[in-house]
């Protein structure tokens, strides 16, 4: 199976669940900005969790299906269409050869994830297929996708891949009413992001911390896969301590020297020297991954223990979604 990129859109990269083994050498984790949607696309096809997918940013992109493929997509950046026919998300889609698929804006979010049965076949670099553009590693030669790129799928199928291919194959586009229910997975459309207290939150005055939780912040234009700059009230320090560079991770909210917030995202560096006022709860990172410049967000504080419980619930729900699909087709 393979697809050919006609129009790459604003930024399209191959990602998997991230590069975790070289953080001590300052190699970022990378991976999808909205890992939940990326995982749903893979689950819908019966792929393994680490099967490489394509992350599309916004719409405009277009690809050709030269020969029959089984694909699935998820996320909030766009809907897929074949001509005028809407292809629904979160479920396996059989596309016969000779079709052109376009991504059309659905106005909700910014990123869409495309999975192919078996996963896209790109080399494993430092233990991962994820693209990290600043060091030109991973994905398609370490770069964003371009028009004319042919992305092949791996010809190694899971049992569920094979059953779904057999079930849907034919001369026409085929899918069923069944889908992985996103609501069941707990992702709601909200711009309230839950956070836990950051290690240096006590370095800021109480009024600033209150502001953090009762004021809207706006995603600035200076935002990318490394992080988002947030526009809003400035945070005031109550001490002048310098933080020695230490670990930061996706979801860390740093405060710059002039009091602005930076929300670190998938390609963020492994260490940083700005004080960390808060940390986005893991379950809400996918929401952050769908934000775009000029979107407003609010922060709400929860306890670390609650954040962990939410994370574990979500993981269990994903396992259930996977089990439901297996039970249905295997």
């Amino acid at each position, binding site marked *: 199976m393979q697809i050919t990129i006609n129009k790459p859109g604003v930024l399209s990269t191959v990602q998997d669940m991230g590069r975790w083994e070289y953080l001590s050498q300052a190699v970022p984790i990378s991976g999808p900005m909205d890992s939940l949607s990326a995982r749903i696309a893979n689950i819908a096809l019966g792929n393994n969790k680490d099967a490489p997918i394509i992350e599309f940013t916004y719409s405009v992109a277009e690809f050709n299906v030269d020969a029959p493929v089984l694909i699935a997509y998820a996320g909030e950046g766009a809907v897929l269409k074949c001509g005028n026919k809407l292809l629904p998300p979160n479920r396996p889609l059989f596309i016969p050869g000779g079709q052109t698929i376009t991504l059309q804006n659905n106005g909700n979010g910014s990123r869409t994830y495309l999975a192919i049965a078996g996963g896209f076949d790109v080399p494993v670099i430092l233990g991962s297929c994820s693209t990290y553009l600043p060091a030109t590693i991973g994905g398609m030669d370490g770069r964003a996708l371009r028009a004319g790129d042919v992305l092949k799928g791996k010809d190694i199928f899971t049992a569920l891949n094979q059953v779904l291919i057999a079930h849907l194959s034919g001369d026409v586009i085929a899918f069923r009413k069944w889908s992985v229910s996103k609501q069941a997975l707990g992702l709601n459309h909200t711009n309230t992001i839950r956070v836990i207290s950051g290690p240096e939150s006590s370095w800021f005055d109480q009024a600033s911390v209150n502001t953090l939780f009762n004021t809207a912040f706006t995603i600035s234009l200076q935002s990318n896969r490394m992080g988002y700059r947030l526009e809003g009230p400035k945070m005031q320090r109550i001490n002048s301590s310098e933080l020695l560079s230490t*670990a930061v991770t996706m979801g860390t909210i740093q405060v710059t020297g002039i009091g602005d917030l930076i929300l670190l995202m998938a390609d963020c560096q492994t260490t940083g020297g700005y004080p960390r006022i808060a940390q986005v709860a893991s379950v809400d990172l996918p929401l952050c991954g769908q934000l775009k410049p000029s979107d407003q967000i609010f922060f709400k504080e929860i306890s670390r223990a609650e954040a962990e419980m939410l994370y574990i619930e979500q993981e269990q729900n994903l396992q259930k979604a996977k089990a439901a699909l297996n039970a249905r087709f295997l």
Partner: protein
Amino acid sequence: MQTLREYYPHLAVYPLSENTITLQFGTSISADILSQVTKVNQLIQEKPFLGFITTVPAYSTLTVYYDPLQLFKSKLDGLHGFQKLSNYLLSLPVPDYQSAETNKPPVIIPIYYGGDHGPDLDEVATMHNMSDDAVINLHSAATYTVYMIGFVPGFAYLGGMDKALASPRKATPRTAVPAGSVGIAGEQTGVYPLQTPGGWQIIGRTPLSMFDVTRNQPSLLKAGDLVKFEAITESEFKYYQTI
């Protein structure tokens, strides 16, 4: 054997996220703290717990990444992942040995100083009323310590530069500094592993790859390494580039 808690009574432990826990050994940069971070890093790597993913050593902290789901299922003592892991790590037995890493030879990094590869060498020399050669001699005489790797893949934060070389950053950062460039910023010196924008005073360049994904250890340097710079000629620089 003493436990980690007994061995390092000043140790602070805090969570960063649901999948990270940080051990903080102090709040300053020192060889002593570096050796503590290095030792405990080795200890955890040698006996990984169920759910262990990786570690990020920094100046005075060691951050451990883990899988919260594995911790949730584990029988370790505690109400949640952070508590379980914190209890587990603090009760680790610490062998009372001196890390073998401390006696290893320095990594030699050849540098071509000045010329096109070190466009700011003259400026730095003028700034300190020195000759170019004096800057080169001071810079290549010291033995440096790698305190941590951070910022970009393979970038080593080095300690040990002669304070006489301390120089302010460029007023206007360059939009592209070539990979291998050796710079000075304040009391720090370092080598750019990748071509990136940068505001450091560039005094030379190494032909070695500081970061190469085809190597077993992609980063040439790691925390705890000792480093010496060695001045080379332009023809030696070109020769290195061919091998």
